[in-house]
């Protein structure tokens, strides 16, 4: 076991009685440090305290205090996805960004916004909508999800196909490092190549390099969404669904959403969404129908775009995992799921975007069968340069490592972690490769 790190909590030998929590209370105010409840657990591991700093200065000071005291810290936003990643190797303190929830600057004429990490995505989008703008992203549970949370987990939905991932929308970040340094990178202009791109490095890092306290984004106009139209097609099999996706992608259409839905007990469907001027949308629908002549049009409800989030409904006994494949291999991924699930007679559902990113839900009475299916699926996907991130698994499956292989650049990732967080204070053990 590595020096200074114990898997059971209390890094650097700190114990409950030795920790000078009063020092933390002095930093953030006594009413903002509280004992924990069941809901504060992170992947089944209980912290000892929760602190809710008022601003980034307090947050950085609290982090520095914890780092000096040898405590392990998990940053938390809305708490929806706190369980994503491996269980923490150690956990003492949850640093909540709940009170860092201001919109700092909405420069609407410049199509940019600067917002604190704890702001709820839904609140931010409503404010931006007053000027007909939005951050072109549709994360899970936007009413609870925070800016810092969606960035740290790199959550993306149907809009990614057209507008890119959060990495492509973020233009600036402020990070609180474990030693209390507050570091800014990027800025509030869309185009900027001055220095290393830390906003991208922090995006998807699961809070293991620093706590995001503030971020700046480029915005997109909402106006186009007004005339939105959705077409749904039923495909004979996943092969046809994948063919339709590839053909739509190869067309000159400018769709803003394209996804396949498949499940163990129904035929696959493909949804495509167009936005823009009324004339433009109409013309695009005509073209799309021609391309889709080999399948059957079945509907035009916009509710299909909630499909990814619906995978999470009543999912306590299910596993949920995100896969990544080449766009032409979506059908192959579905077949791989079918094969993996078939061995244990598991129920499965898939929602895959045209980008090749998808989510799979696996359900069954025997958790070990789910575990076997996840491992088999990951092995098959990784053979084809894909990946499988297991976000949730039912209790009792034994743990499938969450991320899968980080590849031959893992030593560099480890050195990056060592540089940013030499004491392993932030979310220890939770990230890829056990970082």
């Amino acid at each position, binding site marked *: *076991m590595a020096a200074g790190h114990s898997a059971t909590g209390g890094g650097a030998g700190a114990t409950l009685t030795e920790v000078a929590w009063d020092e933390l209370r002095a930093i953030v105010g006594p009413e903002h440090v509280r004992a924990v409840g069941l809901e504060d657990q992170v992947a089944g591991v209980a912290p000892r305290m929760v602190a809710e700093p008022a601003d980034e200065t307090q947050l950085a000071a609290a982090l520095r205090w914890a780092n000096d005291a040898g405590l392990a810290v998990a940053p938390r936003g809305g708490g929806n996805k706190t369980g994503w990643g491996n269980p923490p190797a150690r956990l003492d303190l949850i640093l909540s960004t709940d009170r860092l929830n201001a919109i700092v600057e909405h420069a609407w004429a410049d199509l940019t916004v600067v917002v604190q990490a704890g702001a709820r995505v839904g609140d931010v989008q409503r404010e931006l909508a007053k000027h007909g703008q939005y951050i072109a992203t549709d994360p899970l549970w936007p009413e609870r999800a925070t800016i810092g949370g969606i960035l740290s987990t790199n959550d993306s939905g149907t809009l990614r196909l057209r507008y890119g991932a959060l990495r492509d929308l973020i233009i600036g970040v402020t990070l609180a490092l474990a030693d209390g340094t507050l570091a800014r990178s990027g800025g509030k202009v869309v185009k900027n190549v001055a220095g290393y791109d830390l906003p991208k490095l922090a995006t998807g890092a699961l809070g293991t390099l620093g706590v995001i306290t503030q971020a700046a984004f480029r915005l997109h106009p909402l106006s186009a969404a007004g005339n939105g139209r959705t077409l749904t097609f039923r495909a004979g099999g996943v092969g046809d669904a994948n063919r339709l996706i590839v053909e739509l992608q190869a067309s000159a259409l400018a769709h803003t959403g394209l996804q396949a839905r498949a499940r163990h007990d129904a035929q696959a469907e493909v949804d495509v969404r167009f936005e823009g001027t009324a004339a433009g949308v109409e013309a695009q629908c005509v073209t799309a129908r021609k391309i889709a002549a080999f399948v059957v049009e079945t509907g035009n409800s916009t509710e299909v775009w909630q499909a990814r989030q619906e995978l999470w409904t009543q999912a306590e006994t299910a596993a949920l995992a995100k896969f990544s494949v080449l*766009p032409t291999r979506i059908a192959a991924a579905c077949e791989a799921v079918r094969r993996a699930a078939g061995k244990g007679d598991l129920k499965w559902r898939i929602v895959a975007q045209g980008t090749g990113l998808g989510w799979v839900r696996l359900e069954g009475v025997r958790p070990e069968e789910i575990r076997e299916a996840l491992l088999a699926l990951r092995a098959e996907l990784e053979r084809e340069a894909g990946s499988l991130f297991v976000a949730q698994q039912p209790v009792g499956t034994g743990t499938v490592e969450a991320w899968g292989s980080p590849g031959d650049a893992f030593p560099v990732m480890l050195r990056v972690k060592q540089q940013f967080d030499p004491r*392993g204070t932030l979310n220890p053990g939770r990230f890829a490769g056990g970082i």
Partner: protein
Amino acid sequence: MDARILQEFRAITGDRGIISSAEQLHTYECDGLTNFRVLPQAVVLPESAEQVQAIVRVCHRERIPFVARGSGTGLSGGALPVENGIVISTARMNRILEVDLPNARVVVEPGVINLDVTGRVAPQGFFYAPDPSSQSVCSIGGNVAENSGGAHCLKYGFTTTHVLGIEVVLPDGTMVHLGGKTLDAPGYDLPGVFVGSEGTLGVTTKVILRVVKRPECIQTLLAAFGTTGEAGAAVSGIIAAGMVPAAIEMMDNLSIQAAEAAVHAHYPDCGGLLLVELDGPTAEVAALMEKVNEICNGCGATEIRVAQSEAERAVFWKGRKAAFAAVGRISPNYIVQDGVIPRTALPRVMTEIERLSAAAGIKVANVFHAGDGNLHPLVLYDRRIPGQEHAAEELAMRILELCIEAGGSITGEHGVGEEKKQMMGKMYSEPDLETMQLVRCAFDPLQLSNPSKVFPRPRLCGEKPGRYEPHPLEIAGIAERF
């Protein structure tokens, strides 16, 4: 340089792959920023990733600093050699290795020319979106280093948006693969931090690019205004109307004159010229183009032309793309600057540039990517007039300070390089810069890869940083997976 080491390089690349005679080395003493010059010890021209790796291993063993170089068109001195160091040219690594259009992926070697990627996929209706003005000569490896942009970033993003994976030889000679053909590879977004690192984190040996389907319709409108202020108001109107054009470019009178003198683009002689390009489905473009027309008219446009053919569209662009070089027609010497401001600060910053220009007695021609606030002031001077070069450099830096004061950046697409590293301290605080350099320490603790660029001062990394030890989970995790 030690003859033994030269011999070792020669054994790796062959006789054709090494340059060490002084007269030949002069070709490599600068990049597109010609007022900085350093003669390297040698230039090696590897033909493969394996050769790059072998060369870097020698450099690491001997502690020889190296600078990777693509086509040498960079405008911030990023490929400026370092004394006592070598240049690794990727010019001979110029193969397109793989084209997978159903997945819109193209795999290239770093020496492939930007426009050649588009050339390869154009017959199937695809293009490679990042389009720096130098795209007919600049290399993908250089684009990766600089995170190059171009006129169409407003809609399509930058190099970093279109790079999915990179094969890199690290400064210690290890070869690693960052990202990959599929999205969201497990772990940190290392392609995200490598792109735009200006050659300071290692040498690119392969790049997985994403190409884009050509839109059904592309329309370009040219509008003439009395002043850049009016043209700027039109830009604001377009943005406020909820449009994201593929490009919005602005030129002032001096740059119009220069472009006319050089390439005869038949631009109207006016105070502010706008090029607005819309692309997408035909019906969509037609509806939006009507709106753009209205907005331009409402802002006092004296003339509006819409390109009626691909040829005419090319002529519209020719003047803009040639603007930097064209300035050579009206001034013996000039500095190309690359500041960024929030677009709404444009009138204020323009007025201030005019004032500074008048005060210094030095002319400034202005070319902008107006949609995203990226200014390219061209500071004109005559080296033969004593003191003018210095005054021009001062003015250029003062303009960058204006950009910082307006909440912008000192570089939108050219990079910091050698030229602007002292400005980094004005844009960022010391902790900001120290934090960025943590990345440097993770990739290149000995600071061999393009040392002394980007940052005003190097950070001392130390061979064994920090106290972090890998957690047992990680070892267990790796053991399980590999």
